[in-house]
């Protein structure tokens, strides 16, 4: 690692994740135990070495999350100097990670754990209970103005962005489909991925229309998974190949769920968070050897490749067509299968990205291992790219 940084590197001592599935096979606490115990083992420490615990709510709008962090600390019998439950939509895991990292940079704690869980289940509660809750949820998540217009998921908003992107950058639906196919090819090599049946461009094009131009296979799905990571002071000896967080950028634009004050095809939150992260790590986009990008729809993922600085405006589709984002390409992206094929448990997604990049930098990824990566990038966002975080990871 280069010297003279503005950012004190923080070590990733251990990490773990579950498989990504549609519905949970275990209870929320059993999933938390699985990833927490594995991450501790991976880090070569005892649970009593943990000084801070930072957790996400265990579900997107669903079971109660009030005091869930306290409950987990009790379940694991931890005595802690920091304990918090953090939430910021899709940026939730990264917000918890940011907090955990800061407490180490401040030298208040030496070892912190972050646990991210997102459990999806089909509501079994009766309508009388669900209906008022549902109305309140939609009004609180999407705001009183979007929710009245039938916005019940972010999907139609991203569809508007996708249409606009086609209009502005001459991108075709086949271009986006090609990215979905590339991601599926990556997922075939990842035993943790939710979707592992091979698909073709024709399959994507013929999949059911959801909200034009988005078709079923352009979209992420509901997913369940958990992940955990142990962050530590850089001087603590690592059992495994040392990996450090060497840069972090975060920016939130003044909008929630659709950036109507700005472009819906290129996002200040992403450009600004990437610029900050590259700056503090002292690296350029061309230095990145492997990246995990929070692309929740095929079209949006192409926009993100451009905003993060990998490709020029309007050229991401061409780069994907030429295989530049594949395992042996110039910048391998989303080797995990990405959000479209790994699966997208939103509250845990950035954590799963961090686990993938850590394992890539350690050389643990088997069939999907990128050749000798030294520098990696993790990206996350909330709403429709209203806010974004970028992390730079480097091998020690």
């Amino acid at each position, binding site marked *: 690692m280069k010297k003279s940084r503005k950012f004190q590197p923080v070590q990733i001592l251990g990490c773990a994740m579950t498989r990504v599935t549609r519905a949970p096979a275990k209870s929320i606490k059993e999933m938390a135990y699985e990833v927490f115990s594995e991450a501790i083992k991976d880090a070569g420490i005892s649970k009593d070495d943990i000084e801070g615990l930072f957790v996400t709510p265990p579900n997107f709008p669903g079971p109660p999350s009030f005091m869930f962090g306290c409950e987990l600390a009790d379940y694991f019998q931890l005595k802690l100097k920091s304990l918090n439950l953090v939430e910021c939509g899709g940026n939730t895991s990264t917000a918890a990670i940011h907090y955990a990292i800061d407490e180490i940079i401040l030298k208040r704690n030496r070892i912190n754990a972050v646990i991210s869980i997102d459990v999806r289940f089909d509501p079994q509660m009766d309508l009388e209970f669900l*209906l*008022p809750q549902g*109305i309140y949820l939609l009004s*609180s998540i999407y705001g009183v103005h979007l929710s009245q*217009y*039938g916005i019940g998921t972010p*999907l139609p908003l991203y569809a508007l962005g996708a249409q606009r992107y086609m209009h502005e950058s001459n991108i075709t639906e086949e271009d986006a489909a090609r990215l979905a196919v590339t991601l599926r090819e990556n997922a075939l090599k990842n035993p943790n991925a939710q979707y592992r049946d091979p698909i073709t461009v024709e399959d994507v094009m013929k999949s059911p229309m959801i*909200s034009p131009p988005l078709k079923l296979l352009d979209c992420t799905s509901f997913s369940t998974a958990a992940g955990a990571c142990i962050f530590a002071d850089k001087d603590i000896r690592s059992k495994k190949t040392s990996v450090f967080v060497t840069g972090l950028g975060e920016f939130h634009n003044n909008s929630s769920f659709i950036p109507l004050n700005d472009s819906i095809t290129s996002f200040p939150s992403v450009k600004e968070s990437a610029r900050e992260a590259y700056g503090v790590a002292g690296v350029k986009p061309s230095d990145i050897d492997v990246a995990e990008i929070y692309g929740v729809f095929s079209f949006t993922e192409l926009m993100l490749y451009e905003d993060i600085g990998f490709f020029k405006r309007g050229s991401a589709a061409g780069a994907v067509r030429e295989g530049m984002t594949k395992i042996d390409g110039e910048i391998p992206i989303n080797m995990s299968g990405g959000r479209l094929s790994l699966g997208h448990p939103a509250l845990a997604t950035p954590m799963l990205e961090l686990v993938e990049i850590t394992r890539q930098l350690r050389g643990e990824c088997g069939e999907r291992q990128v050749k000798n990566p030294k520098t990696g990038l993790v990206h996350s966002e909330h709403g429709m790219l209203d806010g974004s975080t970028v992390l730079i990871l480097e091998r020690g």
Partner: protein
Amino acid sequence: MDISETIKKYTLNALEHFGDKASLEFFQRLKNREFSAPKCRHCDKFIFPPRRFCPRCFNEDIFWTNLPEKGILYAFTQQERAIRFSKPDVIGIVDLNGVGMILTKIDAPIDSLRIGMTVQVGFIEIENGMFLHQFSPVK
């Protein structure tokens, strides 16, 4: 349980609880076929979505006035699995000169729409007794 009464009651509660008095007033004015929003006396700019204060200068000295009735269609789509409205559930973003981009219902078949079209405001009553704005192409 009377489902439509429940939706009506909780929607109105949600408007005030998750918005403010200006959100309620905006929808009340739509019911009177008025497409309007508050303007700030200090910056002389529209406050949209409506709020009780100006989010630029945090001034509470606001007055309600009519929004432009015509705008330019910026993007549009159709929810094939509509949760709220029967099909076709066409929505779009309209660029209202001097106000900015607003998300709205579109009253036209999706195949008849093009980015850049001039569209004009109208109103629609929905099943919970509320009125919404909707835009359709100028003939």
